């Protein structure tokens, strides 16, 4: 099986602080991987590095066989590498419907059209309606994002990533800030993803991790200390040590 996503020897330091230390990860089509680790371990930085939002000091990022290390975020997304943000990034004055329509139009190469309205495009509207429905956002589809609850914004953040139909999907704490009652929606949305899609999810909620992931990677102080099956991760001595004392306090932090 050929890897769809390879990260090789990635390194990044902020000032003197080495936040990413020689990280290598390979994802195959269909992978369901959880990336866990204490707060400040460098998980978000890893996503920023591989998606082109930050420039690594060294290392390579290979997407579907192409070296994309020198590319910016935009071309990487076009090649199928899509991420969600840990702290929601949305357009406050636009509606969920507009967000998703824009994403669908972008994916299908129509976001630059200067005439015509998205609501007049049945294929766009059908896809938007489906995404809204999957994440339970239909009833607030035409409200401004600044007026909807943070939990709903989190769900929209995920819907936006799905609308881009990625080959590799990186979710940065998708369930953080989502009310417990709505996490099943996230799980349902993830369960409905194409089976050949590779997903890497950063998540603190271990129940969610164990239900979702077939493989768990643990990052601590910028280095991978474990890469294996969910069954083995809790038994691993180094993982326990890394989490000791810190994990209990982590969930509330941003």
């Amino acid at each position, binding site marked *: 099986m050929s890897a769809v996503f390879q990260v090789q020897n990635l390194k990044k330091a902020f000032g003197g602080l080495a936040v990413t230390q020689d990280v290598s990860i390979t994802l195959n089509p269909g992978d369901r991987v959880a990336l866990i680790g204490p707060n400040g371990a460098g998980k978000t930085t890893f996503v920023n590095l591989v998606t082109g939002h930050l420039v690594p000091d060294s290392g390579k990022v290979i997407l579907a066989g192409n070296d994309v290390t020198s590319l*910016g975020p935009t071309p990487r997304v076009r090649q199928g590498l899509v991420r969600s943000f840990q702290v929601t*990034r949305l357009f406050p004055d636009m509606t969920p419907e507009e967000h998703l329509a824009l994403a669908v139009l*972008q994916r299908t190469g129509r976001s630059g059209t*200067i005439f015509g309205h998205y*609501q007049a495009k049945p*294929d766009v*509207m059908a896809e938007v309606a489906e995404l809204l429905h999957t994440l339970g956002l239909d009833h607030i589809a035409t409200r401004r994002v600044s007026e909807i609850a943070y939990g709903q914004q989190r769900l929209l953040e995920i819907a*936006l990533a799905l609308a*881009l139909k990625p080959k590799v999907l990186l979710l940065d704490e998708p369930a953080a800030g989502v009310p417990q009652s709505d996490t099943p929606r996230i799980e349902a949305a993830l369960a409905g993803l194409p089976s050949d899609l590779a997903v890497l999810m950063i998540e603190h909620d271990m129940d969610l991790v164990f239900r979702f992931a077939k493989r768990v990677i643990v990052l601590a102080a910028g280095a991978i200390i474990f890469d294996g099956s969910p069954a083995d991760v809790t038994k691993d001595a180094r993982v326990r040590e890394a989490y000791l004392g810190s994990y209990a306090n982590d969930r509330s932090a941003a």
Partner: protein
Amino acid sequence: MAAVEHTSIAKPVQSARPNWLARDLIGVAVILAVAVLGYFLFPNNLALLTRILAIALLVLSIDLVTGFCGVATLGHAALFGAGAYAAGIAAVHWGITDPFLMIVIGAVGGAVAGLVSGAVILRGHGLAQLVLSIAVVHLFHEAANKASTYTGGSDGLAGISPDPIFGMFGFDLWGRTAYGFAVALLVIVFVLLRLLTRSPFGMLCRGIKEDPIRVRAMGASVHGTLLKMYVISGVVAGIGGALNAISTQVVGLDSLSFTLSAESLVMLVLGGTGSLYGALIGTVSFMWFEDFVSAANPFHWLTIVGALLIAVVLFAPRGLYGSAQLLLERFRGAGK
């Protein structure tokens, strides 16, 4: 890529659609009514009214990049002046005196100027962007000054005599034809811009203004989109410049000036950024007020204009249109 699935999920959103169409028609009707009113109220001042309409195109054009995309510029007269000189040079040196052709040439001149200045200005961000825009308009001004064989330099480019429109309506001394031509152009541009701002491209621009990082994460090019908007903005400003050249029959270096750039940005802020109506209201109120106050008090009019601006920025930061809209919303909210 897989074909899009058509699901059976109900879409009740579809029904309330032509709402904005009705609103646009009302908007156009209001513009036309104001234009007709102006014609009958100020029959001896049609030249000023026509200039207001030409400047309104410039202010709309600034609104496209500043109000809709969040790019600050103090050099937008470069696009307006480029359109004016392009149309003027075409008429004087190449004998192209058909007014419609002159407008097209002005639009192309403005587009090219938009491409050039956009390519420079978009290299910077924030304050650097503003400084670059000032530098650009000064360079354009200097270039026009130096190329005096074509532009007439500081004497201006005179001798523009456009043909009658449709061979029937000559550009008369009273400026009736010019005024009618200007109103028609403004309405057409306005309608096209309403469509533009609602299009997918318009949404993308709003997105860039609100969060460019999110736009990149959606796979859209921020720089490419902004540059495209700059070119479109150049078309609009260029039409305004060409209109000014046709109606006044001269082009001067002031059409490429920093002063005009700054004043038109002020007009936009006065009316309210991010709304086409705001741009129009800002232009009309500023230019009318300037004309009125400078006639009433020729010594202190600049002071009065300055004081008014400070009052608007402090007490109505959304501009005249934005604040009126806010008041109306509150009023409606209270009425429930």
